């Protein structure tokens, strides 16, 4: 520095600029961005006779079969994998507008608006609809199937989370906020999404809170989790309805990646609702605003 002072001013300025440039290069942090973790693998739509319009919930029976509850004309549309695409196998009329769906390993269960009952659909046995009564005054919301055939039902009227096992109904816990999605954690516990708080919470079998994570906002738009799918001991995929995207959180709740975004074209989403992960790994998303279901392959992990 002292030597610099003996040099003419323009030379000093040049040296200063050079030092600055070197410093900026040395200091600039490596750009950390959320990975794009999804690639579009298929767009699933109905037929001309049975179009898919207002998907509100998804449930998968296997890697080759899933059903979408369509609030347009209140139907359960069952799709089967044909090669790389999906084909509508059956459209089943529901007795009321569906709001949520799950598959308990044997049958599809659909929560119905304004009814204290579930529609039970055995697609493999011809798709007949049987009604499963819920306790009186229950307003069923989100559903999730647990390992072993139990079913979680969110009662929006009382704020209680009910567990249905056979004919028995037990109250797992009470949650004061509105639950927008439920999912099994693959073990004994379950995940709960709270839309207006932009949060996901994990509870164990007795309703003890194990984790509470804020889903990262999409710029100024707070996340509104409207679908959950968990890997056992791994990532949690959260469908962010207001961000029109899927957010992946790692096992510590850190952002592990995002997928898709707002738009109309295949691969993009518009106010999505309903998320399910197939046994083979693909994610299915109910693309409500675009009237379709989209299938995505998961391609990445945490990255720079």
């Amino acid at each position, binding site marked *: *520095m002292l030597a610099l002072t003996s040099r003419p001013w323009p030379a000093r300025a040049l040296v200063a600029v050079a030092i*600055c440039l070197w410093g900026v290069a040395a200091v600039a*942090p490596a750009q950390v961005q959320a990975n794009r973790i999804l690639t579009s693998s298929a767009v699933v739509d109905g037929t001309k006779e049975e179009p898919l319009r*207002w998907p509100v919930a998804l449930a998968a029976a296997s890697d080759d079969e899933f059903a979408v509850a369509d609030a347009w004309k209140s139907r359960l549309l069952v799709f089967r994998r044909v090669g790389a695409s999906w084909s509508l196998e059956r459209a089943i009329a529901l007795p009321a507008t569906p709001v949520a769906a799950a598959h308990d390993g044997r049958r599809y269960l659909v929560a119905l608006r304004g009814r204290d009952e579930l529609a039970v659909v055995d697609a493999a046995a011809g798709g007949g609809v049987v009604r499963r009564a819920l306790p009186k*005054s229950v307003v069923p919301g989100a559903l999730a199937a647990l390992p072993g055939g139990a079913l979680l039902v969110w009662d929006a009227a009382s704020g209680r989370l009910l567990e249905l096992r056979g004919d028995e109904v037990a109250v797992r816990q009470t949650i004061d906020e509105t639950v927008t999605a439920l999912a099994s954690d693959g073990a004994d516990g379950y995940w709960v999404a709270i839309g*207006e708080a932009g949060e996901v919470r994990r509870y164990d079998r007795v309703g003890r809170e194990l984790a509470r994570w804020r889903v990262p906002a999409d710029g*100024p738009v707070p996340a509104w989790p409207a679908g959950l799918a968990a890997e056992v001991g791994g990532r949690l995929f959260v469908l962010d309805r207001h961000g029109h995207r899927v957010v992946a959180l790692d096992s510590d709740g850190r952002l592990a990646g995002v997928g898709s975004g707002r738009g109309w074209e295949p691969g993009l989403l518009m106010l999505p609702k309903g998320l399910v992960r197939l046994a083979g790994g693909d994610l299915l998303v109910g693309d*409500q605003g675009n*009237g379709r279901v989209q299938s995505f392959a998961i391609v990445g992990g945490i990255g720079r």
Partner: protein
Amino acid sequence: MNAMRWIVAGVVLGAAAAAAELPPAQAVDQREVCLQCHDLADALAARVPHPPAARGECTSCHNPHVARFEKLLRAQPGPLCVKCHQELAAELARPEVHAPVAEGRCATCHPPHGADHAGLLARPAAELCRSCHGEVEAWQQRQVRHEPFARGRCAVCHEPHASANARLLKAEGSRVCTGCHTIDDAFRQRHGGYPVERAACQTCHDPHASSRKGLMRETVHAPFAQGACGTCHAAGSAAEPFALLKPQRELCGDCHAAEVAASLAAPFPHVSAGGGECTDCHNPHAGEGEALLQREGDATCLACHDPGGASSGQPGRHVTHTGDVACASCHAPHGGERPLLFARDQVEVCGECHEHQHGITHPLGESTLDPRSSNPMDCGSCHGIHFAPYPKYMHASESRDLCVGCHKDIGRRGQ
């Protein structure tokens, strides 16, 4: 690792600055030199001077030669002020920060050279607040005004810079009120024996002004006005006096049966109304407008759908449709038959006002499928009422991009 980077940055940039430094200037009377060109006579003669300006230390804030910031400021406005006013740094860590403070617009309230009002304020405090908060004018027209408000003493209840509480209140809930209002037997008697000091007084009383005695909010729910608290609540002396006698949807449904039933049965429920949580939006005691809303007009909706949006400074989110269009003009707040709670078919909703456009527009409906999604075309295929960045609420420029998004062959014609 990051800390190391910043240390390296500091050393390198310091070395660069030292290398580039000009020979020290001769000591000058800054005030004399600067004021030769900059006419600050009025500001410097103001009743409340800003000490550096009064002392002629112009270079405390300005670089006389070159700067990265407007008005040759040495740093960004805001951070520059905090360099001396360090008490503000702690305030800025609070969860609620006043928008001009968060945006570093200190000079909106405080002229930096001198002012005529205490606290270096440009105008009397109430006038300053009113210059942004237009609702103050309407409150001033009301018959019954809260004394601090009537005297323009906003800071009795609100923090001007930042607060730990919503609405920049000095204390949470009723504690901001009980600082002045004594809780005694007379107080309890006036409130039917209920320990309302545990609740937030602002839910029933308008803290600024009202046309009603006792600063009660403008619209009062009939059972509340009649003092029939026991219709919904346990007795005031009970262990849980505010406990409801039965679930909300049943309580509200006793009188508003049709609304509650429609809300619970709506194919597309409003998340709050879906379970009969009426008080998410409605105030069961006293509220705003005929519907006893918790907040005025669309503010009830935006409290959830755009929290902080109004003060976030982020353009493009929930841009309101021009004209007298409220959220409920298009959406059914209790839930409806269609996604996004559209009160009616979307084309029908828009066509109610846009009658002319409806007649001449692009083909819509079942017979015209959007090639991007295979969904029927509707107004939303081209227009985004809430966050479209182009004129006429278009999703893309109508000169080309909007059309080419679907009509892909148009761009290739003539090639």
